């Protein structure tokens, strides 16, 4: 005990400095740079104009829509995702690995393509035309759920998997019904992971942009679309600054709320093979999960169909053959080359996100003895969630106006894209790994230390084995974030090396029948690649479970 603390007391602040400096340079400074411009008029600090924007009735309406649409979408995502997390992470059945990989696919699909696929589904002549969802808020919420189910399945699932099953078994042995076991043992133990996942989903939904624009038919606006409109179309930096400040206030409120309600969850154990075969009393949860999977599959099937048909609705492979070309010069490189770029950038971004995320999660999962220390940890934990809740437009324009002079003239640096993506992936890594590290019984560390293990040895033999699964889950997630990221990437990517989502966007927004079809085929390619990467990560995971 004493050795551990002596060794780390000076180390922790030094270690914390690394991610904090990265956050300051690549997030805080650019955001302050662009928001600051909104506070200045005629060279003087004039916050009055910003306050005036906050008082507009439209601002109130926009904020209200943001909050209720994101809140409802988060709730539905949890209802859809939690049973699926159980089925895919606590039960074992053939094809489970494939399903796990496929569930992540919606998360990386470009919003512009999902917008087209959903638009076709809900159009009066579409497969779901009878539901009259076209242009409604329900369509927006449905699409948000489609994107985010995988966040719940993966972050909660990897925690669930590491959870020691013996308490549940004990409760069951003492006569508790499955429902009682879930309510009194499992759910309280899962709570930190569920709250973490819900926070992330809410932030994703409240900053959703493409979906709200595409499916809302311009009748709905959230804070994000409003910032985009004000910044890119009207150059109203004051209005945009006001809304960015509003976003920050909402996130801070949310983080304080989740911190206050956070309780310690159950203990994780490195027990191998917690998955069991499905039983008869799993029927309800299996049926519900099948329904959720079918709902996730529908837009993907629509996409696949469109990629395999021509304008007249006949089957064709032409869209896929076009992937090797540049659409007659529309693209700087072929979709296949763009995929290679995407993979390369994703590898680097994952490395950044994991390195920083592990440091942040490790420090954030500490429980210092003093209250001031605990508060410092909570704030430290919270600030790394901020990139998820702040507009990509604000961040992108911030990069443009701040990182433009030496020593930070990075606007055309190839490193900027993976760094920006890593900033987006970082909160996910932290939210996946931290609950597991927090759940490691501190007495295990103390026991190891008292047996003579140094801090590094404790980390390697206590924390790493427990966190290994969640680390892999986090790595897969960071990779997926990078593969699918469009908002910040489109601002920063260099034309010579576009990523696949950027190429898809360019294809889909150019006239020409084959271009739209090729964009659909390229999206299927992106989806397939994601699924393959996730499967490969699963393989690593199986090996790791066997290792302990």
């Amino acid at each position, binding site marked *: 005990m004493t050795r551990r603390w002596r060794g780390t007391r000076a180390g922790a602040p030094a270690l914390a400095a690394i991610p904090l400096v990265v956050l300051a340079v690549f997030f805080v400074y650019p955001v302050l740079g662009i928001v600051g411009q909104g506070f200045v008029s005629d060279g003087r600090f004039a916050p009055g104009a910003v306050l005036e924007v906050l008082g507009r009735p439209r601002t109130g309406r926009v904020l209200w829509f943001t909050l209720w649409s994101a809140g409802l979408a988060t709730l539905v995502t949890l209802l859809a995702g939690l049973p699926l997390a159980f089925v895919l992470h606590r039960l074992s059945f053939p094809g489970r690995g494939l399903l796990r990989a496929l569930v992540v696919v919606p998360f990386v699909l470009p919003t512009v393509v999902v917008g087209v696929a959903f638009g076709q589904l809900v159009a009066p002549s579409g497969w779901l035309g009878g539901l009259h969802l076209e242009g409604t808020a329900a369509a927006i919420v449905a699409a948000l759920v489609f994107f985010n189910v995988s966040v719940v399945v993966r972050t909660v699932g990897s925690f669930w998997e590491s959870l020691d099953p013996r308490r549940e078994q004990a409760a069951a042995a003492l006569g508790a019904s499955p429902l009682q076991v879930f309510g009194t043992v499992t759910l309280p133990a899962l709570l930190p992971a569920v709250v973490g996942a819900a926070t992330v989903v809410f932030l994703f939904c409240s900053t959703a942009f493409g979906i709200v624009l595409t499916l809302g038919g311009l009748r709905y606006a959230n804070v994000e679309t409003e910032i985009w409109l004000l910044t890119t179309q*009207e150059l109203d930096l004051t209005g945009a600054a006001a809304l960015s400040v509003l976003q920050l206030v909402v996130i801070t409120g949310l983080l304080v709320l989740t911190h206050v309600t956070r309780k310690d969850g159950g203990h994780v154990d490195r027990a191998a093979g917690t998955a069991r075969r499905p039983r008869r009393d799993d029927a309800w949860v299996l049926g519900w999960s099948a329904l959720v999977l079918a709902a996730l599959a529908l837009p993907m099937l629509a996409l696949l169909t469109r990629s395999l048909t021509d304008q007249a609705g006949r089957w064709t492979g032409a869209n896929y053959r076009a992937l090797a070309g540049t659409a007659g010069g529309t693209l700087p490189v072929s979709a296949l080359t763009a995929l290679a770029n995407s993979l390369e950038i994703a590898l680097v971004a994952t490395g950044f996100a994991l390195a920083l995320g592990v440091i942040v999660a490790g420090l954030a999962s500490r429980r210092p003895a003093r209250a001031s220390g605990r508060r410092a940890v909570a704030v430290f934990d919270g600030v790394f969630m901020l990139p998820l809740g702040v507009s990509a437009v604000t961040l992108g324009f911030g990069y443009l106006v701040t990182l433009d002079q030496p020593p930070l003239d990075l606007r055309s640096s190839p490193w900027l894209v993976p760094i920006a993506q890593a900033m987006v992936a970082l909160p996910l890594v932290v939210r996946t790994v931290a609950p597991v590290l927090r759940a490691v019984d501190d007495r295990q560390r103390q026991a190891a230390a008292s047996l003579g293990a140094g801090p590094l040895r404790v980390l390697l033999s206590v924390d790493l084995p427990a966190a290994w699964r969640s680390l892999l889950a986090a790595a897969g997630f960071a990779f997926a974030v990078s593969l699918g990221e469009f908002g910040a990437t489109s601002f920063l990517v260099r034309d010579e090396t576009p990523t696949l989502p950027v190429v898809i966007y360019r294809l889909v927004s150019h006239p020409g029948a084959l271009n739209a079809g090729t964009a659909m085929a390229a999206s299927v390619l992106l989806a397939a690649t994601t699924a393959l990467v996730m499967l490969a990560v699963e393989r690593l995971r199986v090996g790791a479970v066997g*290792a302990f």
Partner: protein
Amino acid sequence: MPGIRSRRVAALVAALSTMAVAGCALSSSGQPDDDPRTVVVVTHDSWAMDKKVIADFEKKSGYTVKVRPTADAGELTNKLVLTKDHPLGDVVYGIDNTFASRAVSSGVLLDNTPSDRPPGAASYDLTEESGAAQLTPVDYGDVCVNVDDAWFKKHGKLPPTTLDDLTEPAYRDLFVVPGATTSSPGLAFLLTTVAAKGEDGWQDYWRRLVANGVKIDASWTNAYEVDFTGGGGNGDRPIVLSYASSPPFTIPEGKTRPTTSALLDTCFRQVEYAGVLNGAHNTRGARAFIDFMLGAEFQEQLPDQMYVFPVDEAAMLPPVWAKYAKVASNPWSVPPEDITAHRAEWLRQWRDLTSR
């Protein structure tokens, strides 16, 4: 146990070294932007050009070209205004007549006189006060209402021909248009109605359009590729706002005639300009590139690459264009100064009118 651990370490080392290799590949990226032999072209994301054409320029001039496409014309202009002190490149291409005066009045451009202008190009010039000295027209396109003739034939109806037809009950729920606040053709159509119905009359026209069931989408893509019957998405609406150059793309395989056509009385002309950025590292290269864009080689590639018409009236058009991509003889227009002065106000009114 030790064997397993060393296997994991090996995997870790392998992963790290792959990252290192990827990182090296990322950083080996040619010369920096401020190299005097490099011309950096900032443009919108509809940019497309044959690599051979650019290579010819590089060979003749000795410059290396770097193209940086970014967003649409509006966002492009705003980015240039925001980065005035440290410009994003040397030359800008793609500012259009709806955003020209914002760029000019913000001082992001230098004066530029091309060395040799093709015949007819001067007719697309801005007025002196809105920046003719700084912005050189390169190409133009007409944003027009398109109709799916095949659909109307199949349903035994006559297609509309004028703006007023679109508010008739016969065309109820048949028209889809991209939004003015989120799409540049959408803004062009709003300006069409301002020009046709007057500064005080367009609001009423839009009220009638909305009452007649017009569908407003966020983007051209969603309007044309999802909701238009002739666009490949098997949509439900046979009337769409698109370009005069769209019909040639609807010639079915093995056939020679397009199934759609553009209504030439409903067009707004978008002219795209090029200019030299104030504070550019390489103004000489920027001027050379603008001269090159006005040359026949670049001009003749414009239709196939970017679906726009060259300002050079002597440039050869692709055969299907010459036949089926008609341009309006009398397109609607609004002076750029008026657009800049009223854009925010018009868009706010439009937003209120259309978000029921």
